């Protein structure tokens, strides 16, 4: 089984009181019973003047009762709004022939609280978006209380991200509202989070959430930066397919999309593909946009996590064999001396 997606983690929501018949989604969807549905999403991380614009699309299809997703963010966003209608498709067109369209639909609910700080709540089409801040346990607890299904690797993955940035964006799809909005299978909702940050790292490990280690992950990652970035992946499987000055045609097209007027005249386009077994995707992508800077190893997710502590035995090496050995050695030496002297005396006494 292969999963083709980008930069979004999808966790399912238990069968709330929402109509069925819409489900499946782009990204790493987890069904209510814990099964994974394979889907596709494309994401753009654009960094300009110290602000990251994170654009992704939630596209739903399939059967489950309700689905949702949680995306780790590098910092607190100032806004989350509907993204341009075709920005992601235009980027895909720039680097390859149009990919086969996927078909989707979905659902969800909204709700409660926990020991997390709710930073922002908004509705975009049929999506209920919540940006929250907290530790891995607290965010997980909040997700459970709000009807998300968390697979068994979720506690470790949430802790992995919370140790670097406590900010997460949760999205749930309201199937009933989707129907009221006339959204059907295959329709998608692009969103754009505007995030002032010094660390525009890109979450990659999240793509493996809930997957069996042998499952393949395929993902498309687009980066737009003011200058050619230095990139550092924390593991194998992520390759740069294109690294070039973005064409004026691309930038002009992107700028004309809704919410994309910030796109400047000159940017650098990087296009990366991820193709790896889920078990190997235990890292992120660090990005240095300052020409004099280096990508952070910690931002690649391999800092403390990759260090295998080497500890001495709990109580140190036992000390008692040493004095015993010395004592035995002294005893052997003493015995030798005594025996030698006895032999000497014996020799003298002999006539």
């Amino acid at each position: 089984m292969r999963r083709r997606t980008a930069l979004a983690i999808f966790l399912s929501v238990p069968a709330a009181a929402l109509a069925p018949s819409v489900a499946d989604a782009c990204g790493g969807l987890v069904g209510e019973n814990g099964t994974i549905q394979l889907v596709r999403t494309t994401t753009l991380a654009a960094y300009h003047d110290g602000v990251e614009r994170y654009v992704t699309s939630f596209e739903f299809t399939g059967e489950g009762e309700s689905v949702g997703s949680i995306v780790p963010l590098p910092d607190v966003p100032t806004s989350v709004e509907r993204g341009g209608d075709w920005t992601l498709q235009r980027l895909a067109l720039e680097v390859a022939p149009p990919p086969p369209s996927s078909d989707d639909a979905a659902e969800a609910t909204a709700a409660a609280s926990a020991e997390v700080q709710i930073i922002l709540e908004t509705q975009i089409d049929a999506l209920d978006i919540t940006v929250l801040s907290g530790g891995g346990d607290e965010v997980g607890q909040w997700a459970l209380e709000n009807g998300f299904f968390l697979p068994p690797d979720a506690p470790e993955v949430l802790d992995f991200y919370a140790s670097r940035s406590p900010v997460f964006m949760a999205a749930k799809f309201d199937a009933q509202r989707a129907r009221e909005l006339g959204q059907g299978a295959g329709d998608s909702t692009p969103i754009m989070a505007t995030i002032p940050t010094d660390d525009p790292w890109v979450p990659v490990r999240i793509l493996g959430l809930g997957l069996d280690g042998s499952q393949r992950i395929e993902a498309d990652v687009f980066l737009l930066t003011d200058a050619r970035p230095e990139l550092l992946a924390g593991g194998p499987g992520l390759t740069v397919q294109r690294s070039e000055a973005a064409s004026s045609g691309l930038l002009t097209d992107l700028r004309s999309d809704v919410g994309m007027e910030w796109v400047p005249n000159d940017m650098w386009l990087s296009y990366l593909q991820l193709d790896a077994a889920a078990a190997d995707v235990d890292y992120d992508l660090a990005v240095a946009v300052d020409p004099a800077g280096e990508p952070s190893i910690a931002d690649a997710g391999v800092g403390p996590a990759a260090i295998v502590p080497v500890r001495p035995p709990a109580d140190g090496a036992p000390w008692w064999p040493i004095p015993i050995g010395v004592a035995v050695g002294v005893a052997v030496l003493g015995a030798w001396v005594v025996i030698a002297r006895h032999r000497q005396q014996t020799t003298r006494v002999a006539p």
Partner: protein
Amino acid sequence: MKRLVPVIAAIVVGSAVALGGLALAAGDEAAPVTLGPDPVTVVVDVEHSRFIPSTLRVEVGTEVRFVVHNDDPINHELIVGTPDVHARHRNGTEAKHPPRPGELSVGPDEHGVTTYRFDEPGVVEIACHLPGHYDYGMRGEVEVVEVP
């Protein structure tokens, strides 16, 4: 040269004794502790969907009181028992388990207690059978041994 022989002999014998002692000590550290036969309490932490510790060794007839601390934000369970018990839970639909010996459900950041008596020698499995948890690695073993 002849005078050095006793000194060398002393060093060799002393070193052999010291090294033997170190090897013996290392062997002691590696040997698992056998619990029982008196009733014992074992604290099992659950973190990142793993049992800590995940292996135990007990003497036949030992009653073990498992105190399970769930440090994860998700539900877990600890099931200990024979293969048919595990098969029942693997295929079952019981969301929460009533207080049966060796069967325990623990919510996020909660703890629970269950007691199980190991009457037969062999290996008894410990597992969480919530969807995906066993395959993720949430399992362990209790080695039940006869002590002469």
